[in-house]
C-alpha cells in the first residue's frame, strides 16, 4: 500500500467519526498546548534574565586585572599586566582583541571655551586594538592612533558647566547634572563637543602649599553612544598620553610606584579582551585564569541562570507531559474502539489482499494522525497563550531601568518541531497495541460478525 493512499483512507475514517476524533485529538491538543506554553514561558523568562546581563554590559568583553599570589611573603609575586601579558592573552583561542587600559591617578579639569568639567574618568587605551571592540559611536570616529586625540562617552557633555567668574563656589548654579536613568527632557540643548579642542588641565603638589598645573590640548574625535557599559563620564585618551600624564603626576605603573623599565615592563592597570562569540567566553575565561590573571564574566552567572531555568523547564514541561500521557491513553482507547467497530471491515480488507503490515500501517497512521491533529491545534493554542501573556503589562522583574524588555513567552522553532514530533510520536506509540490487535484479526471470524 502506498503511503499517500494510506493517509487518504485513514483521513476518511477519521472524518466518519468526527466527534470522537475531535475529542481524542483535543486530549493531545491540551497536552501539547501545556508543554508548549509552559516551556515557552520558561524560555522567555530565561531569555529576559540573560538579556538584562546583555544590556548591562557586552558579554563578549572581559576585563582582566593583575593576579595576586594568595600567600604573601618575600617570594610572593603579583602577576602584573605587561606587554608580554598582552601577547600571551592574544594567544588564547577565541580572543579577538586585547586592549590594555590605564587610568589617570590624579584630578583633571576639562576646559572648552567658557565651559569646564570635573570628575571625569580618564582612561588610556591602546587605539590599535580599538576597532575590534566595536565601540558604538554616536558621532565622529574612535581614536585613530595619532597623538592628542580624545573620545568622550555620551555623558561627558552633561558634566560640563559654565564657569562663574571669581566664584568657584557657586559652580553648581550653572552645572546641570543629568540623571542617566531619566529620559532627556530636551529642554537644554546638549553641548556639542565633537571636533572641538579641549584643554585638559592637570594639577600637582610641588610643596606644602604650592600647586603646579600643566595643560594638554586634545581634539575630540568622537562621542560614544549611550548604552552597554557606558555608565558615567569617561574620556578615552591614547595610552602613551595617559602614561605621560601619570609620570608627570608622580606615578608610573600600578602599585609599585616605580618608573617604567623599558617598553616591555610597562604595567597596565587593566586589560580589556574581546572574545569572538558568546560561546567562547567560558573557554577564554578559563585561559585567562590559567595565566594567573583575575577576571570575571557574567557568563558564570548566566550559566547558573541557565541551569536554574532548565529545571524550571523540566518541571513545567513535565506537567505538560503528564497531560500528554493521559491523552495517549485516550488515543489507545479510541483506537481499540474503532478496531472493534471495524472488525468486519478489517476482515474484508484481509480477504481482498491487504497484508498484515499494511493493516498495521493503517492503524498506526490513524493514531499518528490523531496525534498530529492534536499537536497542531495544541501549537495554535500555545501560540495564542504566548501572545496573550506577552500582551500583558510587562513588569520590570529582571530588567535594568530603561531597558527594553523582551517577550515573556518565547516559542523557538525547535519547540514547534519538538511539540509536533512528540505528539505524532505519542499517537503512533499509543497506536501500537491496537494496530497489532487489528493485524491479528482472523478474517474468517471477522466476516462472520454482523
Amino acid at each position: 500500500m502506498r503511503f499517500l493512499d494510506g493517509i487518504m483512507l485513514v483521513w476518511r475514517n477519521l472524518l466518519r467519526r468526527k466527534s470522537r476524533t475531535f475529542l481524542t485529538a483535543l486530549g493531545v491538543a491540551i497536552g501539547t498546548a501545556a508543554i508548549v506554553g509552559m516551556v515557552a514561558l520558561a524560555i522567555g523568562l530565561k531569555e529576559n534574565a540573560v538579556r538584562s546581563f546583555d544590556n548591562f554590559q557586552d558579554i563578549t568583553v572581559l576585563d582582566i586585572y593583575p593576579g595576586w599570589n594568595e600567600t604573601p611573603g618575600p617570594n610572593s609575586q603579583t602577576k602584573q599586566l605587561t606587554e608580554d601579558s598582552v601577547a600571551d592573552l592574544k594567544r588564547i583561542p577565541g580572543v579577538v582583541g586585547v586592549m590594555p587600559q590605564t587610568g589617570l591617578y590624579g584630578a583633571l579639569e576639562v576646559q572648552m571655551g567658557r565651559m569646564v568639567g570635573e570628575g571625569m574618568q580618564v582612561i588610556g587605551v591602546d587605539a590599535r586594538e580599538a576597532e575590534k571592540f566595536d565601540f558604538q559611536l554616536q558621532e565622529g570616529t574612535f581614536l585613530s592612533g595619532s597623538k592628542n586625540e580624545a573620545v568622550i562617552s555620551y555623558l561627558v557633555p552633561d558634566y560640563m558647566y559654565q564657569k562663574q567668574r571669581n566664584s568657584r563656589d557657586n559652580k553648581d548654579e550653572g552645572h546641570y547634572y543629568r540623571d542617566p536613568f531619566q529620559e532627556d527632557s530636551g529642554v537644554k540643548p546638549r553641548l556639542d563637543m565633537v571636533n572641538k579642542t579641549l584643554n585638559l588641565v592637570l594639577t600637582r603638589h610641588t610643596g606644602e602649599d604650592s600647586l603646579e598645573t600643566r595643560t594638554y590640548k586634545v581634539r575630540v574625535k568622537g562621542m560614544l553612544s549611550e548604552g552597554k557599559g557606558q555608565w558615567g563620564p569617561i574620556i578615552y585618551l591614547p595610552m602613551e598620553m595617559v602614561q605621560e600624564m601619570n609620570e608627570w603626576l608622580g606615578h608610573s605603573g600600578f602599585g609599585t610606584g616605580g618608573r617604567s623599565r623599558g617598553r616591555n615592563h610597562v604595567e597596565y592597570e587593566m586589560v580589556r579582551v574581546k572574545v569572538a562569540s558568546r560561546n567562547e567566553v567560558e573557554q577564554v575565561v578559563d585561559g585567562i585564569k590559567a595565566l594567573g590573571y583575575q577576571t570575571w564574566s557574567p557568563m558564570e552567572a548566566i550559566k547558573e541562570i541557565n541551569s536554574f531555568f532548565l529545571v524550571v523547564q523540566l518541571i513545567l514541561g513535565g506537567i505538560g507531559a503528564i497531560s500528554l500521557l493521559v491523552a495517549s491513553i485516550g488515543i489507545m482507547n479510541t483506537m481499540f474502539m474503532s478496531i472493534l467497530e471495524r472488525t468486519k471491515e478489517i476482515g474484508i480488507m484481509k480477504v481482498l489482499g491487504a497484508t498484515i503490515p499494511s493493516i498495521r500501517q493503517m492503524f498506526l497512521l490513524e493514531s499518528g494522525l490523531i496525534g498530529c491533529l492534536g499537536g497542531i491545534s495544541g501549537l495554535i493554542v500555545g501560540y495564542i497563550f504566548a501572545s496573550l501573556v506577552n500582551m500583558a503589562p510587562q513588569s520590570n522583574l529582571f530588567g535594568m531601568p530603561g531597558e527594553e524588555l523582551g517577550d515573556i513567552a518565547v516559542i523557538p522553532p525547535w519547540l514547534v518541531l519538538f511539540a509536533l514530533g512528540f505528539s505524532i510520536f505519542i499517537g503512533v506509540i499509543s497506536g501500537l497495541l491496537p494496530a497489532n490487535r487489528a493485524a491479528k484479526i482472523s478474517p474468517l471470524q471477522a466476516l462472520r460478525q454482523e
Partner: protein
Amino acid sequence: MIGSIETCDLKHTFKLGKIDVPVLHGINLQVKSGEFVALCGASGSGKSTLLNLIAGLTKPTGGKIIINDTDITNLSENQLCLFRQKNLGFIFQSYNLIPSLTALENVELTLIFAGLPPRERKEKAQFFLELVGLADRMNHKPNELSGGQQQRVSVARALVNNPSVVLADEPTGNLDSHTGREIMNLMRKINIEGKRTFLVVTHDLSLARLADRVIFLRDGLVVEEEVVA
C-alpha cells in the same frame, strides 16, 4: 497450472469447546483452469468450510490445497494475504462492501492494497464497473444501491486484480431469483470471456445447472459429481 485448484485428502475439524467436530473427511477435488464449478450441498455439509480452506482463510487439519501450482497449506498468514491479492477474487453472500466508500472506491481498494498508482487503478476499476453494467452508479455508496447492484460491485471488485481463480460463497443467497440468475449469468459470461476459473458455492440447484460441473457434498464428503452438458 494457472487457474487450477486441487485438494488432496483435505480434512478439517472444528473445536467446539472440548469436543472435536469433524467437518471435512478427506476431500479430493480437481478444478481445471477456466472451469466453472458449482459446489452444492445442504447446510452443514461443509461446502462453505471447503471454500474458506481454499481461500486460505482457515488452515486445514489435514491434507493439501494446491492452487496455481502453489501449495498454500504451509504459507504464513502474511504470505496468504499476498497470495490472495495476486491470485484470488472473492464474492460474498452479503456483498461485504465497505459502507463509507463509493462503488468505485470499493473496487479500487483491492488495487490500493496492491500498491497501484491512482490513475491506473481508477481506470481499471471503471473498466470493471462498466463491465458489470454499473457505469452510471460508480459514485454511489453501497446503501444507495440495490442488492443486485451491490453484488455487481462486489463482482467487479473480485475481478479487478485480474485473479486466475474467483471464489464465490452463496453469491445469490441474498438476492431474489431473478436478480440471482442475472448475477450467475454475469459470472458465467466473465468465466467464458475472461477465461477465469470460478468455484461457486450455492444451494440453488437451478442456478447450479448453469455451471460446467456440479459437485455435491454431504457430511464432509464428495458424494456426487455431475457434468452439465
